[in-house]
């Protein structure tokens, strides 16, 4: 063996955070299960689990930030983080792919078959002879009752503009960080955070509109199911992303990042671009066509 030390940072042992995280997540999910099964005590367990999970996140991320600032992470550790973030985002892409599959399958196969196309002739004839396939649809049994469609060119178009602009502002902030322009960095990032939360607020407004005026609900057949699950999971990811951006903004203000070492910033920016791209697919396939 040669005498070159690797200098790769391997903590000798971890804090209690992983096991605390497991307990927290389990509490959260056991509580949720109990609530779904109609046991009211579940909500206490759920809240306890959520608090423990949040505690874990504060503790764990805090440890990582302290280690990062004290210079324990060399270039190779940085590369590990990069690979991990890339493939984490890829796994998120595949999660959304499942729901897009449901959307495309319903539109391309299940609804036309229910309407009597191809192999669906007999089903249509025997079960729902009056049903004609079209999109949007809440199915042959008109599940959820008559509803109106969410148009693409109101709030969704504005939200598209907002998210695309936020992609620009976060890139501006990144350039400012690399050029060591602190004021521009904080301004760009603050704008991104504001745009992100504005998106979430408008999305919430859209949901209220859908529920109260369009009779468009999660229970509105396959259209309502795909609409709310896709936009809902996306909205959840935007919220997470905006919270992450806020944390990064606070860290920028505290001066945690340098022009050549700011992976946390970049990881969150990648994540932000990812929710941006998912939104474009949503806008095209859920709202527009």
């Amino acid at each position: 063996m040669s005498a070159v030390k690797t200098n790769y940072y391997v903590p000798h042992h971890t804090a209690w955070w992983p096991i605390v995280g497991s307990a927290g997540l389990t509490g959260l999910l056991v509580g949720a299960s109990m609530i779904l099964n109609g046991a009211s005590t579940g909500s206490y367990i759920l809240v306890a689990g959520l608090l423990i999970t949040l505690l874990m996140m504060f503790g764990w991320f805090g440890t990582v930030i302290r280690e990062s600032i004290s210079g324990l992470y060399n270039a190779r550790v940085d590369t590990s983080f990069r690979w991990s973030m890339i493939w984490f985002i890829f796994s998120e892409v595949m999660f959304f792919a499942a729901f897009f599959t449901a959307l495309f399958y319903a539109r391309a196969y299940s609804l036309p078959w229910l309407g009597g196309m191809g192999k669906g002739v007999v089903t249509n004839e025997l079960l729902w002879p009056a049903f004609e396939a079209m999109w949007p649809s809440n199915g042959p049994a008109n599940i959820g009752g008559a509803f109106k469609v969410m148009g693409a060119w109101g709030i969704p178009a504005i939200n598209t503009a907002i998210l695309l602009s936020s992609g620009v502002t976060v890139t501006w902030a990144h350039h400012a960080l690399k050029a060591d322009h602190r004021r521009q960095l904080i301004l760009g990032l603050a704008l991104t955070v504001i745009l992100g939360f504005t998106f979430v607020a408008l999305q919430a407004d859209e949901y209220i509109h859908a529920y109260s005026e369009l009779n468009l609900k999660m229970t509105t057949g396959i259209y309502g199911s795909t609409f709310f699950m896709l936009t809902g999971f996306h909205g959840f990811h935007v919220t997470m992303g905006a919270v992450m951006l806020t944390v990064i903004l606070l860290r920028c203000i505290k001066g945690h990042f340098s022009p050549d070492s700011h992976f946390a910033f970049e990881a969150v920016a990648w994540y932000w671009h990812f929710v941006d791209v998912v939104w474009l697919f949503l806008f095209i396939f859920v709202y527009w066509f």
Partner: protein
Amino acid sequence: MSTTAAALHDHHEPQLTGIKRWLLTTNHKDIGTLYLWFSFIMFLLGGGMALIIRAELFQPGLQIVDPQFFNSMTTMHALVMIFGGVMPAFVGLANWMIPMMIGAPDMALPRMNNWSFWILPFAFAMLISTLFMRGGAPAAGWTMYAPLVLQTGDAFPFMIFSIHLLGISSVMGAINIIATVLNMRAPGMSLMRMPLFVWTWLITAYLLIAVIPVLAGAVTMLLTDKFFGTSFFNPAGGGDPVLFQHIFWFFGHPEVYILILPAFGVMSQIIPTFARKPLFGYASMVYASASIAFLSFIVWAHHMFTVGMPLAGELFFMFSTMLIAIPTGVKVFNWVATMWRGAMTFETPMLFAIAFVVLFTIGGFSGLMLAITPADFQYHDSYFVVAHFHYVLVPGAIFALIAAVYFWLPKWTGHMYSEALGKWHFWLSAVSLNVTFFPMHFVGLAGMQRRVPDYALQFADFNAISSVGAFIFGTSQLLFLYLVIKCIRGGPQASARVWEGAHGLEWTVPSPAPAHTFNTVPDSEVIRRETLA
């Protein structure tokens, strides 16, 4: 061991002892050990469930358990064996071996590694607790087909959420393996010099991060269909139960390669060692593994030939499935060619490896039969399918795991295991598994359905034979447990090389491997010598 390990420790870092060592460890070897013991416990649990199934099926008629509980046993047996047994066991091997094989000081993300493991006991506590719930444990099969699975009782959300937790663990584990393999190789360990076990795990990790989230999406849709009024799998609302099957098997088919690709890697380490020849066709093995992984994404609907797909779909999935026989054939050919005119010896790992090659191939051939759409209309949901997938999983994945344990146990413990006991274990297992599973081909072809606790009288003899085989197989594994514990506690000292024909960086460190290996980069000349490209 303690002196070597202590010498390699940084002095200011205290060594944890007792339970804290296992709860707080970031050491890839400790975490690997945790994974392996956890999976062994799950194997015993899932095996116990299998024996309940075989006890009930020993005779026609209902005698031991009621049908609902029988269905719970088939469902839980599969979930426990797949997610608790085989997958964590291979992750355990990856943890132990990959850093040592590529000359890395540890896994790329040691803390996350700890969490990947410590989610598992919690997730399985949730899943197994469903056995005691109102309505019983999930009983709709591990495939969870809607709408049947929506009739599950209180167990339903617990099952869904435990799958989410298992998914988080798997994705974090996969990300860690990818980051480790791509980023932590010692200088000189180029991709095409990596041991095949590392290659197959890298490819497996990509399969995991591509399909586990899809499973998470699928079960989330089940959850909302049951509790929140969505219509994903409800035709009245414009959905389709078949949609669930498509999404599930888009996960499920790559999943079966997740269970077997690391086994291929293990075989590609063991066979050259005991044939004392370099692996035949190294590059073709890499390309074959990648081809299998790619094809696994476009064959999923061969699980659903009888569901009523358009003809074009039936044909596409039949032919794409048959294509998999080509890269798999390349692998089997290469293993045989490696043994050809080798100076072979037959230590226990090699016995299990040879049995793997022969018996896995039987499972492969029955898979080809099932791939033929019109024939599958007859075989579907029969015991022939059960025979098929148990032939690829038991003498496939599980024999590979057992072989791997025998192969590396001296490296882990520093002691040689008892070769006599190992051979007993091998012959008892190899014979009894064929007694268990081979008759299932016959009863399946004759029309016996799977997942039913009762059967027609003409299947009685073969089922009785199967049950006897199953109990012998199950009991034999206790011998394995005894052997492993005996080896940990003592035995003849193992050398660093352990096996005469062994090559690879893991054989250059002492046995037992010290707690920290390759804190200094291994010499590139050593890498060149150990990895004959």
